[in-house]
């Protein structure tokens, strides 16, 4: 059993190495990537069907680090089995899809290898029974995300987006590292079980839990760290699918789930989590509604959905535990992967990802159309799709928490959840209407409108665009247009290559999982727990929202978001200037850095230079005084004699 667990982690890493070596031969690289991920999926399936509940699988052996215990064990239980399986499946689908999507990209090999490495990082985190291993997986994913997002490094937007993503998450990781260190210190060991069972030392506990929340907020894009995620759409669509669906972004909730028993006993930390999560889910859903670009809309929806998972962890009572959050993680993994791959497929067909350019493109494309329909429906939470069950499980758990003395924290979450349900349904409906309603020839204006609308931000380039890049890594590119460029370039590269069967199949499989994926969740106790009341309520809300959108957009002939006032919408498209705020921070740090350099040159280094000058000065003074005037030397002589005579006589005894 344990070798399976190890293999699941090690194989993708080896695949990454092999793929890197074989990056020149496309077919070989693709074979390695797909083959390995398929094999890993099989292994994960075995682990899932026959999970051995063990938490002491040797990985690389116990580290001898003096007083600190670092066993570096792996674990295997139902949760890890489930998540590992989901991750493996999603990764497999993505690898298959990528093989077609990036067929003509000279860097396909590197990309596939990076995806494998990324997968191994996530799988390591999933199966880690040791804080250090969790951190390792965590950071590896961050690094790979930098590589993936910056894949098209010709485009400054991609470079910048990648840089932004890594730096923002890394800043948040300050909290993660400090938190994990604090927890490890508290337990005197980094072993997960020991950490969970350790007792006392409340300050360390608080620091640890809050720190981890900060770290999670970074990677999972909670406010205020959320803004890197939409920009991450600069990456190729499969990368977005990977990052958003099952891995990096969702990893945070998995980590907190692992530490749930600690959080359950600590109200302060959970309150913080609840506030962040609630704010983020609503805010992100609102922004998603206003987006003019499909991928960015999906990105904001991801933010909102992840916040939902975290809110479950923040509100669920101890006895229910983390199951609801994890089930939503699984569900979200499936439908979000589906949506992204579908979006990628669609963008290849349309040569763009701007909603305006995609209008009606779904019409009459059977498989793709149904897949997107299923995906959006699952996202919106339409029964009997997986999204419906998982979301309602979360709501139900939150209600449980609220009624069983969760107090304001839980109620906040519940309210936020219901609001989010409405908003989610609304933007899903909008997206569907835009994508599916064919452009009526009667009114061409709408289309041009949207084109103008989507094109508008392009013109409004941020002043800092002209910043020297070598100075600050801040060359702000506006949101909506650039992903477009990416697709355009890609399509030129592709020349409308017809999708391969395998790629289409991978999309279809994911579509199927949105329907039957619920069955997987039965393996996790309490993963599906839908109360009648909440179910009815949410269904009603969903339907109502969808109907409202349908009417407001008079049967989908116009973009309902146009009803939002223009300037508000622009601001929303730009994420309400969050990016500007980041730039401001970057500026501040750079200013400090300049100050430091100036100090280094003019103050710290001044002393050595001053010494040299002083030495020369003294020397010259001496030189002048020694210009052969014996009488002076004689005076010095007398002085010397007297001085040392006095000294000698006095200091003799």
């Amino acid at each position, binding site marked *: 059993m344990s070798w399976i667990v190890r293999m699941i982690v090690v194989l993708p890493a080896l695949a990454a190495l092999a793929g890197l070596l074989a990056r020149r031969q496309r077919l070989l690289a693709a074979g390695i990537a797909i083959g390995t991920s398929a094999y890993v999926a099989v292994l994960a399936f075995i682990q899932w069907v026959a999970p051995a509940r063990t938490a002491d699988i040797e990985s690389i052996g116990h580290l001898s680090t003096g007083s600190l215990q670092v066993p570096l064990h792996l674990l295997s239980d139902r949760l890890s089995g489930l998540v590992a399986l989901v991750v493996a499946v999603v990764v497999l689908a993505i690898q298959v899809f990528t093989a077609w999507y990036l067929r003509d990209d000279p860097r396909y090999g590197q990309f596939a290898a990076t995806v494998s490495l990324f997968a191994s990082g996530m799988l390591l985190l999933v199966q880690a029974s040791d804080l250090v291993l969790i951190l390792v997986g965590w950071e590896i994913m961050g690094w790979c995300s930098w590589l993936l997002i910056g894949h098209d490094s010709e485009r400054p937007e991609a470079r910048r987006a990648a840089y932004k993503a890594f730096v923002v998450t890394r800043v948040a990781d300050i909290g993660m590292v400090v938190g994990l260190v604090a927890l490890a210190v508290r337990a005197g060991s980094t072993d997960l079980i020991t950490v969970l069972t350790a007792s006392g030392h409340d300050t360390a506990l608080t620091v640890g839990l809050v720190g981890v929340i900060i770290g999670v907020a970074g990677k999972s894009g909670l406010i205020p760290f959320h803004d890197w995620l939409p920009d991450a759409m600069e990456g190729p669509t499969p990368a977005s699918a990977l990052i958003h669906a099952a891995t990096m972004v969702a990893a945070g909730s998995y980590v907190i789930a692992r530490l749930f028993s600690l959080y359950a006993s600590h109200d302060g930390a959970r309150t913080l989590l609840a506030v962040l999560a609630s704010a983020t889910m609503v805010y992100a859903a609102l922004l998603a509604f206003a987006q003019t670009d499909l991928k960015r809309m999906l990105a904001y929806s991801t933010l909102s959905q992840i916040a939902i998972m975290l809110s479950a962890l923040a509100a669920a009572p101890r006895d229910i535990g983390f199951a609801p959050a994890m089930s939503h993680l699984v569900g979200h993994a499936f439908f979000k992967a589906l949506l992204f791959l579908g979006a990628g497929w669609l963008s290849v067909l349309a040569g763009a990802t701007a909603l305006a350019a995609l209008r009606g493109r779904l019409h009459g494309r059977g498989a793709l159309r149904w897949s997107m329909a299923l995906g959006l429906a699952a996202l919106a939470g339409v029964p009997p799709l997986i999204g419906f069950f998982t979301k309602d499980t979360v709501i139900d758990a939150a209600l449980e928490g609220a009624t069983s003395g969760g107090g304001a924290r839980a109620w906040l979450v519940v309210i936020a959840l219901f609001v989010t349900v409405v908003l989610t349904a609304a933007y899903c409906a909008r997206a569907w209407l835009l994508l599916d309603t064919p452009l009526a020839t009667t009114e061409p204006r709408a289309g041009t409108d949207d084109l103008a609308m989507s094109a508008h931000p392009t013109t409004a380039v941020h002043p800092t665009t002209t910043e020297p890049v070598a100075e600050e890594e801040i060359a702000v590119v506006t949101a909506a247009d650039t992903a477009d460029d990416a697709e355009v370039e890609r399509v030129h590269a592709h020349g409308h290559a017809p999708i391969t069967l395998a790629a289409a199949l991978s999309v279809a499989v994911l579509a199927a999982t949105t329907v039957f994926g619920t069955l997987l969740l039965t393996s996790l106790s309490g993963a599906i727990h839908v109360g009648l009341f909440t179910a009815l309520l949410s269904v009603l809300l969903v339907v109502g929202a969808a109907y409202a959108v349908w009417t407001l957009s008079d049967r989908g002939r116009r973009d309902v978001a146009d009803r939002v006032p223009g300037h508000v919408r622009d601001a929303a498209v730009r994420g309400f200037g969050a990016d500007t705020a980041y730039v401001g921070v970057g500026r501040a740090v750079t200013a400090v850095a300049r100050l430091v350099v100036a100090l280094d040159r003019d103050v710290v280094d001044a002393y050595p230079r001053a010494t040299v000058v002083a030495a020369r000065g003294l020397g010259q003074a001496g030189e002048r005084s020694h210009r052969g*005037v*014996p*009488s002076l030397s004689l005076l010095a002589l007398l002085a010397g004699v007297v001085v040392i005579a006095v000294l000698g006589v006095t200091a003799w005894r």
Partner: protein
Amino acid sequence: MIHLQLPAVLAALLAGIGVYGVLARRNAVLILIGVELILNAANLLLVTAGSRPGVPFAAGPVLTLFVITIAAAEITVALAVVLVLFRTTGAIDLTAVPDLTDEPEPAPAPGLEPAPHPAPELDLRGEVRS
């Protein structure tokens, strides 16, 4: 036995005068005289100390003789140098002797070969070859 202090005091006086002479005078000869005064102070001290009972081998007077002898040698050399100085600079004002190394250093240092006629130009000619 107090009387033996008087020579000591006298010696101190002599030494002081001598030091003053060395410091205050610029003329070479006067400086030499100053040095002589110090030496004589020392001699007086030696003789006095030597005259105490129990001092072996009449060390006081003997040492005094030593000192006088060495002083003679010193003065000989001194006068020789002063003579050369006079021939070179035309004065025996010691404090006026500048540090002459700033003049163009004549070509390769000539081992120990002297220039018995220390007129510079001659000397220069002598040095330039080799």
